[in-house]
């Protein structure tokens, strides 16, 4: 399968001030081009505030972002016109940076529902197989065995939430998994566990797009494509050698070599705290 992003421009609306309810549109992605094929493992690196997480959210269909130009296609099919749930059922997955807490629904019921919806009305998940698989995945991620019975992310530590995202990925077996800073909030041991589990997903039907600004996670995941994103564009693509270079030299060399100033979009960063009205849960907005 092939996921292609062409000349993608994306805006976010921010409230200028609360009183007059006026909104301003800020462009965050300024023409992103990217091609992902199953069987490949990609990483996107770059300084904070350059649009990496925005790209992840837009591929999944987060309603807070407005695509102003460009296209995303999955095997030629227009992804941008698909609803969020449809994208998921077609094989796109987003491991979120700030996963939501939802009371009263157990992880197990949630994941089961998500698996069932992929089967359609006529087929049913074998409960026995589901439980076995869930137990196996939970233990591979070294999570507590009571996890299936706990409510979705409720009372989870930051690290537990991230592992829970990976658990869902393992259970749902997407074709394209976008991992949005899955390494933030993980300690060294957890980082290793998460990294190894992601790496184990590798295969001809799987492609991962790993968003990170540290190389640590990539010690455990063997990626073959590395992209560097600066100021809303992918400015450089290459292989693993880029990881090391960033690790050793940071991002300053990009300016020298490419003539691009990897400045952080300060305007976006300061305003993003009051993202559009839909962002009820402000800790889910892209503040950093």
């Amino acid at each position, binding site marked *: 399968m092939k996921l292609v992003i062409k000349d993608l421009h994306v805006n976010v609306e921010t409230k200028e001030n609360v009183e007059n309810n006026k909104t301003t549109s800020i462009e965050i992605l300024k023409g992103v081009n990217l091609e992902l094929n199953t069987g490949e493992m990609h990483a996107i690196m770059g300084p904070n505030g350059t649009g990496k997480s925005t790209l992840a959210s837009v591929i999944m269909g987060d309603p807070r972002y407005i695509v102003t130009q460009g296209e995303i296609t999955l095997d030629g099919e227009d992804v941008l016109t698909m609803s969020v749930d449809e994208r998921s*059922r077609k094989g796109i997955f987003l491991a979120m940076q700030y996963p*939501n807490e*939802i009371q009263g629904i157990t992880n197990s019921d949630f994941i089961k529902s998500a698996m069932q919806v992929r089967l359609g009305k006529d087929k049913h998940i074998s409960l026995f197989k589901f439980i076995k698989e869930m137990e196996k995945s939970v233990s591979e991620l070294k999570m507590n065995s009571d996890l299936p019975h706990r409510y979705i992310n409720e009372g989870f530590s930051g690290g537990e939430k991230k592992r829970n995202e990976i658990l869902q990925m393992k259970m749902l077996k997407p074709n394209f998994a976008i991992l949005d800073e899955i390494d933030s909030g993980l300690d060294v041991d957890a980082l290793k566990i998460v990294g190894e589990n992601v790496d184990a997903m590798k295969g001809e039907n799987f492609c991962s797009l790993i968003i990170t600004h540290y190389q640590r996670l990539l010690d455990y995941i063997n990626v073959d494509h590395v992209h560097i994103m600066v100021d809303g564009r992918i400015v450089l693509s290459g292989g693993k050698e880029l990881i090391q270079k960033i690790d050793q030299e940071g991002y300053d060399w990009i300016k020298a070599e490419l003539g691009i100033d990897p400045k952080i979009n300060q305007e976006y960063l300061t305003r993003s705290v009051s993202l559009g009205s839909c962002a*009820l849960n402000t800790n889910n907005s892209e503040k950093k």
Partner: protein
Amino acid sequence: MNEKNKEQVIDKNINKVLEDNSDLKEIINDIDYKYGFVTDVENVYDTGKGLNEDVVKKISNYKNEPDWMLDLRLKAYSHFKKAKDPKWGPDLSDINYDEYTYYIKSSKAVEKSWDDVPKEIKDTFDKIGIPEAEKKYLAGVSTQFESEVVYHNNLKELEDLGVIFCDTDTAVKKYPDLVKKYFGKIVPYSDNKFAALNTAVWSGGSFIYVPKGVKVEKPLQSYFRINSELMGQFERTLIIVDEGASVHYVEGCTAPIYSKDSLHAAVVEIFIHKNASCRYSTVQNWSNNIVNLVTKRAICYDNALMEWIDGNVGSALNMKYPACVLAGNGAKGVTISIAFASTNQYQDTGAKMIHLAPNTSSKIISKSICREGGVVNYRGKVKIGKEASHSNSHIECDTIILDNLSKSDTIPHNEVNNKTSRIEHEATVSKVSEDQLFYLMSRGIKKEDALQMIVMGFIEPFAKELPMEYAVELNRLIQLNMEGAIG
């Protein structure tokens, strides 16, 4: 203080403390009610429309009641004539009491076995699945069909334990001493207009007596169903749990749709003696043309526990505030409730906890949901009296408003009258979060299902307290009510 004096003081306190209940306004009747089927039943006897002293006498006479019950009915009726609607809550001035039929009898006797139940009635029950439910689960079925219990089956094991479970009419005849002792003692007819109305024309309802030390393990259960146009439903339930005993009673109801409004004014009285406990679970799903004005009250003596598990999904107008009077040292009251209001529905529900003795505690968890123009209010009263030292109460009221057409208010009345007690009150009102919807949908779950999941998760603290089959039914009801809820 001896027991008798103590009870008198308590009775006095109760009357002083409780001013209460009930309801209504003009109702709308073009509602798409999913259980709206009508079974053609030949009514055996009815009193015709309207209410007067003669009707009250006819009811009593028809039931062959002892004089003391007739006297009580007549006193209640004369009080009802004078009584005013509550000064608060929904406007009830549009109820026309002459438009209702106050008594209909559809089956001649209380049937002993399922085989004897008339076929039409069985058909109705089949539609709501009672026989299956009974086979699986019930320790005894007492099914209210119109005004009278038509089917009643006491399992032998209950009888062996000395538990009495019958309809209240039968109890008046078979256990007059017990009924006399308790009937109208915690909800006197003078309590409120609708308690007076109920006392005057009551019919049916369940009577339960659990003897000292007996723990009834399976829930006792009954279904109520209104099946006649404009017929009032005035059942009277009386539960007595003697010292150290325990019982769980489950009341369920669905009702068919009619073009005219229907009035329902039940009274439930529960007496829980020392060290005893009672749980009363109900999911009220009257069709959306019914005005439901219910007085439910329990009194807990020393170390007794009362739990109201109270679901409100149906009715056009519903006023219901299950109350616990914590009259004995260490008594405990719990109310866990949900209210769901959709188009043309007004749910004014809540709870009352009246602390009259030391070391008492209470907990209220209320979950409200409204959509499509529905109105849902939490109205509650917690009073910790002067004598109720070292007591505490915890109240949680959460509301989800699903769209901009719907409305919700939280109207708590909390009062502490001593220095060693405390009340905690938490309330939240929220909309369904876009982020939560996005999260669930990003795993492939469709928007309507995601919304439903969030709502089901929201009421989970209530649903988990229900017996399994009721939880399943609640699930289905919420699903029906949520259809087309995407906005």
